[in-house]
């Protein structure tokens, strides 16, 4: 078996894939990470068109060339997928630096030199991805020359789907814009900040009419005073408030829930903090409990609260080194009621919520965050605005892949008998 002698097999496949990996590393050493901005429209569009023309040219100009056919076959595909998989494993193991800060800020470690701490914009990663797209393209084109059967439907939607998803995702990433915008209640905002911290003016404006947060009911936990860790250490427990008058067990203690104030002021008494009802902004949740330590009769009674930006936390000491505490309440949902204006449209109203972005023109607007320090009394809402002109290409690919997966599920692997008829394996058996 000699290398580079036709017919080519896996050996050559690995040499080519590893060769691309090393070319990528060389580029990485000499010019550093890829700057996505350099490939912004129209550069990515031109590259894309040239790439497709190149694929078609290779396919139609050299129909009988063995090397071209080899590139569209399993012997090239498996090594390519394997080496790309290897890079994914490295990407999954090594913590990544964000892409927004500049090259210069990074420590010049070995990882940085290899590009491994910003893998997805490193040359080896992107080149191998392109190589996969190239193989996918040639595979699909080569397949059209064979006798077609119903099974080929699955083949085409899977491979063309992945081609489109990778192609669109790769080229489109340079054009994607992600901005954040912060709006206070009653105000209108049309500027946003990009990932480099620059202010951008938008062709749309958002007015925040009101911002609402809903919280889950509060919980009680037993904590160790010094560390603040929840007990029992090996299996932390909590009790979520349900109703007053209940008696429950928490980490060995018996708790009787005496009172619950969803809106309370926390005041300082002679020895302890206590709570009184207060229907005002800044009010905290408070629960009055009677706690009995395990195996004892005497109990402690007092208020527990998680406080707010106005009031302090209140814990109830139940033994020398443990107390009952109320952790921050978890957020159930938060949403913005907004009015938005576009360049040619009058005001329109909408609701923006997590998982329910608002789509205006080319922009998708996501509920991103709020004034966390003020918690449920936040009067500020933070949005993420995303524009991705290549999304349609990627989605076309994703939906083809979804259909292809269903096809794969139903059709299953090829039956053993028919394997010979439409692969080139007969010719390349001796590798």
């Amino acid at each position, binding site marked *: 078996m000699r290398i580079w002698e036709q017919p080519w097999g896996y050996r050559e496949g690995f040499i080519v894939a590893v060769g691309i990996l090393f070319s990528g590393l060389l580029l990485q050493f000499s010019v550093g990470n890829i700057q996505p901005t350099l490939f912004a429209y129209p550069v990515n569009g031109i590259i894309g068109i040239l790439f497709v023309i190149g694929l078609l040219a290779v396919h139609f100009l050299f129909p009988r060339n063995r090397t071209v056919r080899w590139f569209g076959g*399993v*012997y090239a*595909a*498996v090594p390519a*997928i*394997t080496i*790309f*998989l290897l890079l*994914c*494993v490295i*990407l*999954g*193991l*090594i*913590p*990544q630096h964000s892409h927004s800060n500049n090259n210069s800020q990074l420590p010049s470690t070995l990882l940085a030199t290899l590009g491994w701490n910003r*893998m997805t914009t490193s040359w080896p990663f992107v080149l191998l991805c392109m190589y996969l797209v190239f193989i996918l393209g040639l595979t699909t084109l080569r397949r059209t020359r064979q006798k077609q059967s119903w099974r080929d439907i699955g083949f085409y939607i899977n491979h063309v789907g992945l081609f489109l998803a990778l192609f669109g*995702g790769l080229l489109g990433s340079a054009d*994607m814009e*992600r901005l954040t915008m912060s709006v206070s209640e009653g105000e209108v905002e049309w500027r946003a900040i990009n990932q480099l911290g620059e202010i951008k003016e938008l062709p749309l404006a958002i007015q925040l009419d009101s911002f609402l947060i809903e919280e*889950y009911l509060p919980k009680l936990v037993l904590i160790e005073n010094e560390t603040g860790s929840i007990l029992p250490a090996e*299996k*932390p427990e*909590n009790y*979520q408030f349900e109703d007053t008058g209940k008696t429950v067990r928490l980490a060995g203690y018996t708790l009787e829930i005496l009172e619950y104030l969803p809106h309370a002021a926390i005041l300082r008494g002679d020895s302890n903090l206590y709570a009184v009802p207060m229907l005002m902004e800044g009010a905290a949740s408070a629960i009055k409990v009677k706690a009995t330590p395990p195996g004892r009769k005497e109990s402690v009674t007092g208020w527990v609260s998680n406080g707010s930006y106005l009031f302090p936390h209140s814990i109830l000491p139940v033994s020398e080194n443990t107390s009952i505490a109320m952790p921050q309440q*978890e*957020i*159930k*949902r*938060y949403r913005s009621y907004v009015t938005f204006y576009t360049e040619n449209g009058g005001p329109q109203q909408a609701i923006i*919520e*997590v*998982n*329910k*972005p608002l789509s205006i023109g080319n922009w*998708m607007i*996501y509920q991103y965050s709020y004034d966390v320090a003020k918690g449920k009394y936040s009067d500020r809402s933070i949005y*993420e605005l*995303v524009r*991705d002109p290549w*999304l349609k290409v*990627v989605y076309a690919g*994703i939906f083809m*892949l*979804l259909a*292809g*997966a*269903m096809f*794969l*599920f139903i*059709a*299953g*692997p*090829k039956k*053993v008998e028919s*394997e*010979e008829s439409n*692969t080139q*394996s007969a010719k390349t*058996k001796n590798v």
Partner: protein
Amino acid sequence: MNWDSFIYFAILSILFWAAGATAAFKSKRKATPALLTVTGLLIFLLFIVGLWHFLERPPLRTMGETRLWYSFFLPVAGLLTFLRWKYKWILSFTTLLSTVFILVNILKPEIHNKSLMPALQSPWFAPHVIIYMFSYAILGAATLIALYYLIRERKIENCDRLLHMTDELVYAGVACVTLGMLMGAIWAKEAWGHYWSWDPKETWAAATWLGYMVYIHYRLKKNASSRLSMYLLLIAFILLQICWYGVNYLPSAQQSIHTYS
């Protein structure tokens, strides 16, 4: 119905599954083992439905809750394999593996939390996780066959049949992995603004998927080595384990937005 009653349902289910697995060796027909297994599954499902009702949200969030689905889908995958190829021992394997996961849930329950953070409140949540758990179970079954093959290679009479079985399981499993992954991508676009961010969990999902892609494509050639194919399955399944819970322990996971409680 809360976690306290889990142990009773679990024991009852395991007994039925074990009876089904034994019947698979004893009886000539498929009906008896199938009926026993299905009864066990129904009992187990009853608990899942009860828990869902108690939590007022789908039980898909914590590690313990996903293990619950996994213990459910393993016998399902085993039963389908048994009905399709009448492999006697597959039900014993899946029962055993399912029992291991049930034991983990009984001995080391993690915080069973009622609340669901806003990003998880989506119609994509349930199908995304359930289809992933289902695919993990199918691929788990394929891995068991691979192990069986590698350990007893010399003594197996009909190797081709085994290989065809792993192929079929992998195609079905990979189809579901693909569906789960792409649903995840569409959901991520809706919740976080981008369909793929190379977050550690996503990266390992891609690695897992690519691992099975290597297997599928490698197997297309008639001269493919059977041993290597089975090793590829083992490697892919290890990647899957990292993706499922292994990522939580990796240095890269500190940045993950995918770690919930």
